[in-house]
């Protein structure tokens, strides 16, 4: 790890003053469960580390008329255990509870979870976010069993946050602030597929802090289904988060978002369309799963993920259908 200056601000304003206009100068430190590894591997070599854990304004979960506000410093454990979140957004609550391990859930924060860097092994071994060699990504012909099946490049890593798909499906808003003032982006446009090596995979600017997320109010059924190989310390192979607006027994409208299949949570309008106007049965859920992966483009080693995505969508829909709101 490279030596760095350490800032310990108590307010958002103080913290913002320590950030810089360019990536690489300063890094925000929240739970540190990702940043420390990035620094140890020299993937991040900030001159300044800005600890935000003392900023009270970034804490807490509140239920308001507009919805549920979740502060950036809320830990994954708090998120998983919060009753309001459980009641209004089961898909998010379950996703948080499934992140391993108890130690990580107690340290890791919601803000850090959304801003964590991809786990792509080319990136983590220093080949860059797009793993380019001679103007071409190495991923399609390389070791790609855990990589993207949607998006078509040039980025093939998968978005690492398992909260991401749930937030996109719920239509959450993400609030950011810089010295110039606050702004709000829908979760769906917070995650982006970088087109070149110098861009980031999230809409956050280097001089900004993520302050909170807001889950819009409204009665929905939601579910997250995850395929994880191990019961311990493992990443999902694929997830699916769904949100259903029901009209009686029939789906009025739906959101179907898959995780770990693309550089961003992958919102499948095809799957949502397939289930709209129908009651959820094994057959309709299966059809929606098929629709969700109809345009998947697997790489040389990850065709199995297409099956996993189809099954995850089906099972998430069936689970959401069982829910009472």
């Amino acid at each position, binding site marked *: *790890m*490279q030596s760095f200056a350490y800032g310990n601000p108590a307010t958002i304003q103080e913290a913002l003053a320590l950030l810089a206009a360019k990536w690489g100068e300063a890094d925000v430190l929240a739970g540190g469960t990702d940043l420390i590894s990035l620094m140890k591997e*020299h993937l991040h070599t900030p001159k300044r580390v800005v600890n935000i854990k003392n900023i009270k304004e970034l804490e807490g979960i509140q239920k308001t008329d507009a919805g549920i506000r979740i502060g950036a410093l809320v830990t994954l454990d708090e998120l998983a255990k919060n009753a309001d979140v459980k009641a209004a957004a089961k898909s998010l609550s379950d996703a948080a509870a499934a992140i391993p391990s108890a130690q990580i859930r107690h340290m890791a924060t919601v803000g850090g979870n959304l801003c964590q860097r991809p*786990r792509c*092994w*080319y990136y983590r*071994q220093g*080949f860059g976010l797009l793993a380019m*060699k001679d103007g071409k990504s*190495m991923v399609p*012909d*390389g*070791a790609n*069993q*855990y990589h993207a099946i949607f998006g078509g490049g040039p980025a093939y890593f998968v978005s690492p946050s398992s909260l991401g798909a749930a937030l996109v499906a719920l239509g959450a808003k993400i609030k950011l602030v810089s010295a110039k003032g606050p702004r709000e982006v829908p979760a769906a446009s917070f995650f982006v597929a970088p087109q070149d090596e110098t861009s980031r995979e999230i809409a956050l600017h280097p001089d900004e802090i993520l302050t909170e997320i807001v889950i819009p109010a409204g009665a929905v059924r939601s579910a997250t289904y995850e*395929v994880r*190989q*191990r*019961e*311990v*310390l*493992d*990443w999902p*192979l694929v997830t699916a988060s769904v949100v259903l607006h029901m009209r009686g027994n029939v789906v009025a409208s739906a959101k179907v978002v898959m995780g770990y299949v693309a550089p961003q949570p992958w919102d499948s309008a095809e799957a949502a369309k397939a289930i709209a106007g129908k009651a959820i049965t094994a057959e309709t859920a299966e059809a929606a799963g098929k629709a969700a992966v109809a345009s998947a483009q697997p790489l040389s*080693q*990850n*065709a*199995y993920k297409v*099956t*996993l995505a189809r*099954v995850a969508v089906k099972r998430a829909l069936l689970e959401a259908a069982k829910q009472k709101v």
Partner: protein
Amino acid sequence: MANTPDYSWPPMDARKIMGKPYKRLDGPQKAAGRAKYTSDLKMKDMLFAAYLTCPHAHARITSIDTGAAEKMNGVQAVLVIAEAGKELQWHGQEVAAVAATTEEVAREAILKIKVAYEVLPHFVNEADLAKAASRGKAAGEKVTGDPEKAIQDAEAVSDGVYGIPVITHCCLEPHGCVIQWQGDQVMAWPSTQFVTGWAGTLAPNLKVPAANIKVKMDYIGGGFGSKFSPGAWAEVGARLSQKAGGKPVKIFLDRASEQQIPGNRPSAFGKIKIAGKKDGTITAWQSDTWASGGFAGGGQPPLPYVYTNIPNTRLNHVSVSVNAGPSQAWRAPNNQQASYLTCSAIEDFAAKVGVDPMVVFDKNAGYTPRAEQYQYQLKKAAELSEWSKLWKPRGSQTGAVRRGLGIGVNAWGGAGHACEARTTINPDGSVLLEMGTQDLGTGTRTIMTQVAAETLGLQMGQIKLAIGDNSLPPGGASGGSTTVGGASSATRKSGINALAKLFEAAAPALSAQPEDLEAVDGTVRVKSDTKKSMSWVAACKKIGPGGKISETGANEQRNPMGLNSGGAAGVQVADVSVDTETGLVKINRYVAVQDCGLIINPRLAESQIYGAIIMGISTALFEERIMDNLTGRMMNSDMEFYKLAGIKDIGDIVVHLDIREVNDKRGVIGLGEPPAIGICAAVGNAVANAIGVRVPNMPMSPMHVLNTLEGRNA
């Protein structure tokens, strides 16, 4: 020899301390974090070493410049391991090392070493033999009987392709040591499976007499076959220490290097044909196998495994050299591969002829060296796994989640190694037992103490034990499941020898002949008239002030005197559920029937089997070294994508130790390795049984299972 004392074990029903389930003596220390492993050691002026390793899979160093690193504040020694001109054969191979006052400085310093490489072509994946071309070396063909004719005449022939990948060692404590080289004296604290032999292996490299190398180790955080030799890092650490003016240097591999440098379990792939009769009788075996354990190629698994006497066989094997780290013994080297290839092929033959595999394994037991033993165990394993109730013919199930049962077999030696113990009895009655051995966590401390207490008629707390020091009487290498047999036998002999001396001192006071005495329940007494007795302490007083009894006893491999022997057998059954939509495999229950000899401590013996099964299930479901053809790197040299099982992934384990008197009479037999052998075999067979097709490649991951179910095994 006329006067050979009777060293034999007390009869099963007369044992007071042996055979009892004592907990590990060092358990509380370990659980409380008080036990200091070598990697925990901190010493005054200790320096930390870090390695610079090769970023390419195959390259020649054209220049190396350590100037900037040497000038760094805190850097005390820099050692170039691979000079300009040296060809490096794998990603992660050692290039240079630095010793500095802190770990941080050492890690920063290695980044300042400038190395220029000429990158050369690499080859890293041996799974497809056709691509190996000139990198494969064929071993000579071996033929017995007339396999051609037997296959032609057979009523049924099954064909299969199977693969078990390279997996890496994952000791919790990585490889390394703390080492100090001052003048012609070396002091070392290694993490090793062979305390006694460590100095002798290192000495020629340092050109220091082995007698000048002192070795001490209290605890080791896992070995599993990977920590016999001092390793290159011991020499590197010693040279750094010498360069730094004789300060102690702590040199331990980091996790990535740990999975790349110190050795792995080689892969094995095979195309196997089994021919036989419709009733399941096997008549012929033909295998074309290939394997790799790194640049030096890979070993040949002994085939057909356990069923060694199949009459007509043809064996071909190719060893493939890849640009990857070397192999090392891994808990029963070559046996897991052999068991996987053999048991998979037998299960596939059983499915082909439509006979219950339990019947096929049993019917062909005549081909094994110990037919009755295996038949007994098959029956026991069937009973404990509820085979007759739960097993369904392959492919007969429907539904998303399907249950399957599968069999794996093992065979191992496990006779005691050569080693020597010394028992010292002091006039105050205190007892010291010494041997330069090591306790790998298996319970060596505990069983040696039990044997000594049993032999001397004392309680566990009355024996003081010293191990882990090369100035003590020689211990053996803890490998091949040889420690328990060796250490227990030598302890028994030195105890009996010491007692003989004590009896000589005490006999006059009891007006008896020394050979008429016995030591029981803290007394020394006359065998024929047990009322004539004195306390242990009173007897020891007769040694006389200033005197002591110190007697050695050695286990001789050629003549273990019935105290230990080799030859263990085991049968295991995996019971799994496979979600055919996601390819996820869960273990419901795992049954292990293991033959063993005399059991000194049933708790520790069972614990060996639990450990073996946990490790084996991890390999069967998760573990795999993933090599990237493009960069030539191991992509998962971490604990994140090199997946190890956690306790929730294991399912129920049912252990049946075969403690019948026939087995007790065979003396002590090592148990570390045999139960670890057949797990990939059993799990792979259970998966095939559940889903109706063979998943050829381990591990049983969603990727491999779905690729098979969806026809992508090209």
